[in-house]
């Protein structure tokens, strides 16, 4: 069974595919729209493969991700705007 969740809730080792970029509940707000564009520019697009590689010490924040073949660091606050579908065969 496939499982979608916000990337901000994922734990270290999680792998999957981005299914939605942008927090559509807040749509129309300039801030949310700007965040969506910045995420897209950094390679977070629908269909990109991601893997959560590392977590910070305090509050497991920020997180280091592999997005396709590059590495990106992100706060969980921003990761909340990304929805991912985790691999079913996740470890």
């Amino acid at each position, binding site marked *: 069974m496939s499982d979608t969740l916000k990337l901000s809730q994922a734990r270290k080792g999680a792998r999957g595919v981005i299914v939605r970029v942008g927090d559509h509940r807040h749509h129309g707000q300039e801030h949310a729209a700007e965040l969506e*564009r910045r995420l*897209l520019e950094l390679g977070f*697009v629908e269909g990109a493969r991601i893997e959560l590689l590392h977590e910070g*010490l305090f509050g497991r924040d920020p997180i280091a991700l592999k997005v396709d*073949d590059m590495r990106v660091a992100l706060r969980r606050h921003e990761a909340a705007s990304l929805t991912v579908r985790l691999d079913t065969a996740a470890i």
Partner: protein
Amino acid sequence: MDMHVRTARVALVGNPNSGKTALFNALTGAHQKVANYAGVTVERKEGHIRTADGRTMSVLDLPGTYSLRARSPDEEVTRDAVLGKLAGEPTPDVLVAVADATNLRLVLRLVLELKAVGRPMVLALNMYDIAQRQGLRIDLEKLRAELGVPIVTTVATRKRGIDELIAAIDAAAGGLSATAENAWVAPDAEALRGKALEAERIMKACVRPPERPDTLTGRIDSLLLHPVAGLVILLTLLFVMFQAVFTWATPLMDGIEGALGMLGAWVATVMPDGIWQSLIVDGLISGVGSVLVFLPQILILFLFIILLEDFGYMARAAFLMDRIMGGAGLHGRAFIPLLSSFACAIPGVMAARVIDSKRDRLTTIMVAPLMTCSARIPVYTLIIAAFIPNEQVWGFASLQGLVMFGLYAAGILSALVVSFVIRKVFWRGAVEPFMMELPAYKTPDFKSVLFNLWLRARIFLERAGRIILPLMIIVWALSTFPYPPEGATQPAIDYSFAGMMGHALEPIFAPIGFNWQMVIALIPGMAAREVAVAALGTVYAVADPESATSLLGATLAAQWSLATGLAFLAWYVFAPQCVATLGVVKRELNSWKWMWVMVVYMFGLAYLAAFVTYRVAVALGAG
């Protein structure tokens, strides 16, 4: 064509970490000029290149970016420079897109976006050596056809492909690739998605995944980004860095001080006594010298920073520190500038340019002078030696060392509190997103490290020199004129403007336990903190205070109460006693207002801290 008559203009655009700086250096060598764009604080780097047949072209290096879309007022400058909309900046004739060949996806999207600008473009596939080592196969012919731009492969650090790149730029500048009207509009989310899909398709068509992908970065990261081990390593690195800055630099600093002392003494023998001798010896040589002595420390600090940047560690340090500093409202990237400020706030303030968000950068600059710079050390050592007994506590720690540590901690702690307050008061809690690429690790290239070190030292000296020289002369004039009357009994400074100001300001400082001698010493001490030590020597008429620190210490211990000594230390933790820093802050923020905010808040804190320290100490019987 008129292109051949005037100098062609080239602009470098590319993602961060693509080797854009290295390519710019390879293209222009030492012929580069770093300044600010008129009226704004964005750095403008320009250099010149020579074509094979001897003509010159000017190259503009633009800040690394993922998109032409401006996300901050500062980035509008980059965009407008590319589009030729910036007053006083002609439109570039050729755009050079710089790409990390091993990390093409994002830059392909940028290239697709840049095509809309309608200028001739050349794509430089940099780091081609790494791509080849990894066995990454890029179908250059196909990529050229897909993108419709000429492609040159380069290895910036080895200067490979540079001549070919220059030839390609030259061909594009004079060439047949027609210049079209600018059709660029800021892309919205849908346009970005479209371009990302297109880039992905081109990737699939032209690039075969590496046969020997980089697994080293991942393995190093498991250690360096480990929540606990990573922080321990970071702290160890910092410790080593501090040791290096303070111990390696000492002999060099002593050498510079000795040489300047000799120069001053020599000038004093060849020039007749009088105002010009005084201006040159006491104003220029000792003033400039007080900044120059920090050059060894700054060079060592820069060396560490450049090595860590080139290795790819700085982004990891920002990752590790983000949450810790984020609690105080600072961005993870503020880490580097604040670190530099322990040597001297001036390079720290200048290093804040790495922070792309304007607010975060401003907060960082505002708190950078609170970090204990090395100019405070002479003041701290003098007062601690005079007032704090040299004894052991808890069996292992020296009390003097603990006080020193406490002063450093007070600086760091207050910086965290102040940035928290700035965020709450001025930004009303707005949080800038933290997201950045973690570049693949690379072995730093020896030659380019040295080159960058030299460039940064040059920029530091130019900037600091331009600001410091005039200020030194003002401070010198204040402490020299007017001359003492005939038969004066007090030291000459007592009769000068500085002396008058000291006496006039004394009532204000009395509540915090400062006597008029101290207040007078504060005025030349504005030039640089450690000058206060020399000034105290002058007012207490101790000859040659530099070599006789113990004598001055004994005098102070006899004349001041313990409470006064402690209040003076507390004052120096906060006081913005360095006009050069204020000058650089004004320049970097391009704002008098923020410089004055800094002056007021720092003097306010200094007064408050000294007041509380003095009163508490008096109440405890140390008055």
